[in-house]
């Protein structure tokens, strides 16, 4: 059995090597992310059955937990790392052809590192180590948002950086308080001792940690950076930011709330925040005329749905939230990747300029439509299965509070349906604008873009028809998050 630590060490080594390769031959660097993510995908998938039997506890430096950093490759961690590696692989293939300007070798190095950060976050079992990987993720995304060096990118990058830097400082204060209270940094060890400290002190430290990670997760009052950053970045990076980076923030919050603090009493509040995030995101998205900005706001809305699902604190609710994470990562990556070449083709990010794209780029448009339908939640796409699971979970709680929130959340979904259907209608049923360059000619995106987009679309349909493909794995993963005593026992007992 290979050690899960390789999921972090090998891509990291390849990232260091990539800049060395870049010195020798500029053309070779773009294959390095593909290799790294392929490796990660293979290793994660091969470890998955083992982790479902029992989480793999990896020691570093040879000391038993909690006395050094340990990785906990449980069902949830490995499932998310599979998702990261899979999306990362497809976007890396896309990036090979899409990135043609700027310092390309540096793009590919940063691209590997953003994924290393996300992988490290979901696998680590140590709270400060989580912070370090969080910083790796954040800092590489600041740089990548501004990668093109245009005015929008630089502005979005600096705004993202300022808010992110404050967020990380808050996280660090929270970690300081935690270390002061418990004298330990291992998540399992903190979870075992959490009852020995007064509630108020716990609340203050938890508030710092949640606020800090909430900036990256873009929950409602802290999401000012997201639309700018996601719309100004290159499309491949938008796909990673929307598909993976904000999910990593949510994962960190969920770990804090469920596994470490066991703070079930805060959860109705979390659910309300989730629904508020959803409504704000969908309403802002409705007013957009810029396609990438619309997609970015729609990501905020979907984050709200995920947070709502997590707020239900039942196994089925958390499973539903994980399913939404999965379906949204696929669909949003697909939409950003497809829109990348459509924007490139039409030369503008206005939604109206995409009219008639269905005849000019039929395959790309078809995939875009599949992604949009999945996000709305139409059957037989994966989005339907995930949203249905949320509905089932909310009804299963039999709590009027959650049912009312669910009703509000469904209003948000209707708004989402309205604007996505508008775009799809424009793609297929409106004539190409007069002034469009090379009007009417059929020219598809290059193969390096069509393959990832096609694979994503196929997967959306396949999982939509057989939700069991993913559904069976979700229960154990949700349990991994909710079962505090089991987590502590497995980590500390090793």
């Amino acid at each position, binding site marked *: 059995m290979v050690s899960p*630590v390789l999921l972090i060490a090998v891509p990291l080594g390849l990232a260091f090597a990539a800049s060395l390769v870049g010195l020798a031959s500029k053309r070779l660097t773009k294959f390095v992310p593909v290799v790294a993510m392929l490796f990660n995908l293979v290793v994660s998938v091969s470890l998955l059955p083992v982790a479902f039997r029992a989480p793999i506890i990896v020691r570093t430096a040879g000391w038993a937990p909690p006395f050094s950093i340990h990785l906990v490759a449980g069902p949830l961690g490995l499932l998310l790392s599979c998702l990261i590696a899979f999306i990362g692989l497809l976007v890396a293939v896309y990036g090979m052809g899409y990135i043609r300007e700027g310092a390309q070798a540096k793009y590919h190095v940063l691209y590997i590192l953003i994924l290393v950060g996300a992988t490290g976050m979901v696998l680590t079992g140590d709270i400060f180590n989580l912070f370090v990987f969080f910083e790796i993720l954040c*800092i590489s995304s600041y740089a990548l948002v501004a990668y093109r060096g245009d005015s929008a990118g630089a502005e979005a990058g600096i705004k993202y950086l300022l808010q992110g830097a404050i967020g990380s400082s808050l996280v660090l204060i929270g970690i300081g308080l935690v270390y002061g209270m418990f004298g*330990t940094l291992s998540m399992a060890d903190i979870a075992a001792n959490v009852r020995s400290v007064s509630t*108020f002190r716990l609340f203050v430290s938890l508030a710092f940690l949640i606020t800090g990670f909430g900036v990256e997760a873009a929950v409602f009052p802290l999401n000012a950076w997201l639309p700018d950053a996601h719309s100004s970045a290159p499309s491949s990076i938008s796909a990673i930011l929307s598909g993976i980076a904000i999910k990593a923030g949510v994962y960190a919050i969920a770990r804090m709330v469920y596994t470490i603090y066991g703070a079930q009493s805060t959860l109705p509040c979390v659910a309300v925040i989730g629904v508020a995030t959803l409504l704000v995101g969908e309403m802002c998205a409705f007013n957009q005329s810029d396609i990438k900005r619309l997609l970015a706001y729609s990501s905020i809305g979907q984050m709200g749905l995920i947070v709502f699902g997590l707020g239900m604190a039942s196994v089925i609710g958390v499973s539903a939230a994980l399913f939404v994470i999965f379906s949204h990562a696929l669909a949003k990556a697909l939409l950003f990747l497809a829109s990348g070449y459509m924007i490139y083709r039409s030369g503008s990010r206005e939604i109206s300029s995409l009219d008639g794209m269905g005849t000019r780029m039929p395959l790309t448009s078809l995939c875009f439509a599949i992604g949009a339908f999945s996000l709305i939640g139409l059957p037989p796409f994966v989005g339907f299965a995930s949203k249905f699971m949320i509905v089932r979970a909310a009804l299963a709680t039999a709590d009027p509070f959650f049912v009312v929130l669910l009703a509000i959340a469904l209003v948000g979904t209707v708004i989402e349906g309205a604007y996505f259907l508008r775009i799809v209608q424009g793609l297929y049923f409106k004539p190409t604008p007069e002034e469009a360059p090379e009007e009417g000619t059929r020219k598809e995106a290059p193969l390096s873009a069509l393959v990832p987009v096609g694979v994503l679309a196929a997967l959306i349909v396949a999982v939509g028809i057989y939700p069991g493909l993913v559904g069976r794995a979700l229960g154990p993963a949700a349990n991994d998050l909710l079962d505090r005593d089991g987590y502590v026992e497995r980590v500390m007992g090793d």
Partner: protein
Amino acid sequence: MRRLISLLLLLIVALGLALCLSGAPFGARGADEGAGLAPDKVNFGRRYNERGLEENGAANIVTSVVVNYRGFDTLGEVTVLFIAAVGLAAVLYTRTGKAASAGAEPSSLVLFTGCRFLFPLILLLGAYIFIHGHLTPGGGFQGGAVVASGFLLIYLGCPDRKLSKAAVGAVESLSGLAFVAVALVGLTVGGSFLLNFLPKGTVYGLLSAGIIPLIYVLIGFKVGSELGGIIDNLSGGSE
């Protein structure tokens, strides 16, 4: 209005912190007072202080913690610095890469000579700091920063001398790769990433503490070249 809201926010944060800390007087976990911030629980610090010397053989416990017990963090940390160096170059990338040194005026003879004289001494000091990281205060980060300040001095005193970007990139990549490789050797030899697999030697000797000095020297090279690269990128190419 904005100012008022900000002040209100600050007040709330301050109040929460003050209340949280009011029960935690500074440095209470001393020998003179029994209870304190973290009473009788598993305490990392105490264990490292008590067992660190025999387990890792490094006289400086902080080094032992940084490189061995929490070495994984340190790997992440040099990665963060690496990202900053690469990201800075990507953000400030210009297609033409125009030569900036054309407008630079030569510095005075005294400054030039002084810099040339001081530069090797600064490098020597930096190397001393990171080689003795496991024995005395200091280590890879501090030594690397000193080395980078040497490059800063050269930049200020002798503007016509430029760091070779390729050499800087090669040093940072190679030292990073070597760090990962040493950690992976631990994985193959003893089944644990970053395992201290070399003999510990005698305490207080220069060749003690197994892989700790080796890794700290690599970190020193990496940090020095990265900070040097950052300075070079930020200072060069001015308009």
